């Protein structure tokens, strides 16, 4: 299982630069998810690793071997495409076995392999169907099976679930997680869906505008985002941002904004290295608890604007001064629109970002 390393990878289309020096190392048997909003260069990065796009600058190393000049077929990888890219004129079995047949493997071996991967993805009953006679989910499995059959150590996936409906996507996501444990491969998974990334990946790489914003384990990225973009991108519902100003009152540092004045825990305040200036306060909805008795310095008073019922929980969109704050609340809590509720902030869950650079403080 090889290590893939991207070294200062740059991609230009004409004089438009879409990737600005991507440095990344993906280790043995690691599931890496590239996430980011549409157009941030995820697919481009993946296609450059696959060899489907040329490299403008920089180099790609697979096990310390530079590969940027190699043909896709010589890089030893398999890929699942967003639109599945099945061969329409071949039945499922022939789709799956195409790479093996090109390698002129013995027929018995090919048959065994086809049966094995068809078993893994649950396609055994459909081997003689053409892709045109399969549903979206089945096609997705064929694409997965075809990539698995190749036995290559690197497995690339470009938004493999994005063409499926929500329910099927959830189911396939779970199956993917199971498959992930059965096959030992270096996987790179592109998605714009942060839930897929969080649930599947060992490591998440957040991209934005052709730059890597941050990389690390899902927990690392969730707990200590490097900047405001990563903080807002991961987590659902997304983190709330409030403009505020730092000020010392006695021994304690406070973040003061419209309608709130929240104490910063002493430890965090020490590491900030500043005691005044404008900062953005970030608090995740899950870190706000309804508590009418919370003391002023750890509380937000929020006026309910919209309540979205989603079952056990309701998502409330509230006004805090001129900003909107999203909170989650058990559905049985009785609330009225325009009512003002007090929420306690978990002190250790306070994030602060520099107003200008948007970097975490």
């Amino acid at each position, binding site marked *: 299982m090889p290590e893939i390393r991207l070294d200062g990878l740059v991609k230009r289309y004409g004089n438009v630069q879409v990737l600005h020096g991507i440095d990344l190392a993906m280790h043995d048997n690691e599931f890496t998810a590239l996430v980011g909003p549409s157009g941030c260069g995820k697919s481009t990065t993946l296609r450059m690793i*696959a*060899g*489907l796009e040329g490299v403008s600058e920089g180099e790609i190393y697979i096990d310390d071997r530079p590969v940027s000049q190699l*043909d*896709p*077929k010589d890089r030893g*990888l*398999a*890929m699942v*495409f*967003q*639109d*599945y*890219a*099945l*061969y*329409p*004129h071949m039945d499922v079995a022939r789709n799956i076995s*195409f*790479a093996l047949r*090109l*390698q002129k493997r013995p027929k018995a071996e090919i048959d065994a392999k086809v049966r094995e991967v068809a078993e893994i993805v649950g396609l055994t009953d459909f081997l003689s*169907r*053409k892709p*045109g*006679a*399969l*549903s979206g989910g089945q096609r997705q499995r064929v694409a997965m099976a*075809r990539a698995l059959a*190749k036995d290559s150590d690197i497995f690339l996936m470009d938004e493999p679930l994005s063409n499926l409906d929500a329910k099927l996507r959830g189911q396939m996501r779970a199956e993917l997680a199971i498959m992930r444990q059965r096959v030992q491969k270096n996987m790179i998974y592109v998605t714009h869906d942060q839930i897929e990334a969080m649930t599947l990946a060992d490591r998440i790489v957040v991209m934005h505008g052709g730059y890597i914003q941050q990389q690390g384990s899902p927990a690392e990225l969730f707990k200590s985002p490097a900047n405001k973009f990563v903080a807002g991108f991961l987590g659902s519902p997304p983190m709330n941002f409030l403009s505020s100003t730092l000020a010392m009152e006695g021994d304690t540092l406070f973040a003061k904004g419209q309608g709130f004045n929240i104490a910063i825990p002493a430890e965090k305040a020490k590491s900030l290295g500043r005691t005044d200036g404008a900062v953005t306060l970030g608090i995740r909805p899950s870190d706000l608890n309804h508590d009418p008795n919370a003391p002023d310095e750890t509380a937000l008073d929020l006026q309910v604007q919209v309540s979205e019922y989603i079952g056990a929980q309701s998502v409330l969109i509230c006004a805090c001064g001129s900003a909107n704050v999203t909170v989650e609340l058990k559905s049985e809590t009785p609330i009225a629109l325009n009512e003002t509720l007090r929420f306690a902030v978990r002190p250790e869950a306070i994030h602060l970002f520099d107003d200008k650079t948007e970097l975490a403080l």
Partner: protein
Amino acid sequence: MSTARANRITPYLFMAPAAVIMAIALLYPLGFMVYGSFRDWDPSQSIGETEFVGFKNYVTLWFDPAFRESLSVTLIFAFSVVTAEMILGVGLALLLDRNIRGMSLLRTLFILPMMIAPVVVGLMWRYMYHPTVGTFNRTLKSMGLEGVDWLGQHALLSVIIADIWQWTPFIFILALAALQSLPRSALEAARIDGATAWQQIIHIKLPLMMPVLVVTALLRLIDAFKVLEVILVMTEGGPGLSTEIVALRISRTATEFRELGTAAAMSNYLLILLLLFTIGMFTLTRLQEARAKRLARQIQEDE
């Protein structure tokens, strides 16, 4: 009259003028030709004065070595040009399906021959094939080689070459269009699966282009059976009967031999042959449609 009924009739009303024109311009001449083919008919006679001879014209033709010769020339001509044009046209399309600077200009140049009037093509090639002053032989001689008796000894081949020159572009355009509408990602998947350029052509591109190619070949074949002007201008069917395709023999039978009935019967033979090809083509598309429908049903049953 109820509105519903009026609504049902309206489309036919709108179609009526076209149907009438079709009947007059298409069916009447066709019927006239079939009728004439059963008669012994000299151009000086009006059709009413002619004598009914039953299938005599057809039977005579069937055993006429000259007609058989001309039929076999036609078949050889049609199948060789279509084969050569398919190979060249598809091959060129495969070669030129890429984004190189100046490619669109090149593609435009390629399709020029198709736009030249057939008579002009014939004249042009007759000049180029001329034994002494023609382009080909002058070039050969300037290189110290013997001239070739293009329109004499090798008349059929020469005619075939001219037709290939004119009609390869037709195949080329259609093949290129088919090629460019292929699913890009399937080809990318093939590249990742380890297919070389050649394997991509054999295993992915050609099979996916096949429906278009089959129809293109049939269209070209039907057209090649009816070619007249280019050959008329280049060789007038000679030397001997070596390039006398059926269309040419029909026109000679009617004008030189003054046997309109036989000419009509000959046209009908050609028509039947073409009809067979057309029916073949239709069945093929029908089969494909039926298969697509069956697949669609299969999906529905799954869900």
